[in-house]
């Protein structure tokens, strides 16, 4: 593994978004991953519709919550074409699912995998480099007050409650850490990102890890 790796350096990560008072973190994390993998395939970096996933994923609860894995399963089964964010913009509330003609532009996934990487964070870093950003579920209770630095304490590995997207890692300093994109706007944390210590399953970051294929 390299000492440092970040998909942002390749200009394939969309800007941090703000979920406002909608509990749609699960949709933000997987759409962020799909956007990057789409760009890695040689396409332009586009912002895709999070609202489409919030409104349409049938086994989830829109702004009242959902699961990254069940949403990915639906995207994969139906080969749903995710339209651009500009076409189906975020409203911060659950709405009626809009359907688009088959001929209209959209990005669909070819597959996904979801695994528990606890005690295998080296392999998880390799997966990040091979497949693209990783959608993970963490315990983010203490993140309410986070301002910066590397989170090493004050969260649990058994109470997952928030979905985010890992875009990279940095092992150049004393404390190696994951670089994690959140969906609480750019004023939160480190320009919308948070650093989590690597190698100890802090906040349960390695317990539920999903990667998409396009």
């Amino acid at each position: 593994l390299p000492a440092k790796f970040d998909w942002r350096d390749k200009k394939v990560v969309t800007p941090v978004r703000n979920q406002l008072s909608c509990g749609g973190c699960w949709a933000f994390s997987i759409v962020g991953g799909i956007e990057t993998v789409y760009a890695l395939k040689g396409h332009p970096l586009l912002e895709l519709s999070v609202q489409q996933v919030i409104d349409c994923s049938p086994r989830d609860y829109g702004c009242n919550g959902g699961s990254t894995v069940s949403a990915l399963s639906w995207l994969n089964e139906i080969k749903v074409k995710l339209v651009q964010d500009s076409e189906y913009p975020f409203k911060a509330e659950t709405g009626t699912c809009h359907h688009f003609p088959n001929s209209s532009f959209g990005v669909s996934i070819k597959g996904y995998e979801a695994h528990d990487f606890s005690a295998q964070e080296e392999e998880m870093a390799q997966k990040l480099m091979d497949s693209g950003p990783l959608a993970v579920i963490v315990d983010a209770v203490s993140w309410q007050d986070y301002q910066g630095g590397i989170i090493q304490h004050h969260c649990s590995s058994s109470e997952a409650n928030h979905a985010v997207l890992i875009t990279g890692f940095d092992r150049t300093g004393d404390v190696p850490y994951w670089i994690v994109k959140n969906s609480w706007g750019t004023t939160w944390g480190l320009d919308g990102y948070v650093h989590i210590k690597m190698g100890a399953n802090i906040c349960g970051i390695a317990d539920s890890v999903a990667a998409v294929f396009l």
Partner: protein
Amino acid sequence: QGSEEFHKRYKLFQESLRRHHFLSSSSNATNTATYGINQFSDLSSEEFRTIYLRALPVHVPKYSKPYKSSRKRL
């Protein structure tokens, strides 16, 4: 200012200052996280949890490295 809502939010903000103090004091190592005022400082922990922490955890299989045969390794 002066409204019931203002007093509620001000109290929650003061509670958040105590919480920041606890979170910051219990970690003495360098390179550790800092906690302080942000856009969530006038929310109670319960409100924060109810609004923002809505991901449903799922049990996924343990990752196992792809098998490489000894012939391939040779």
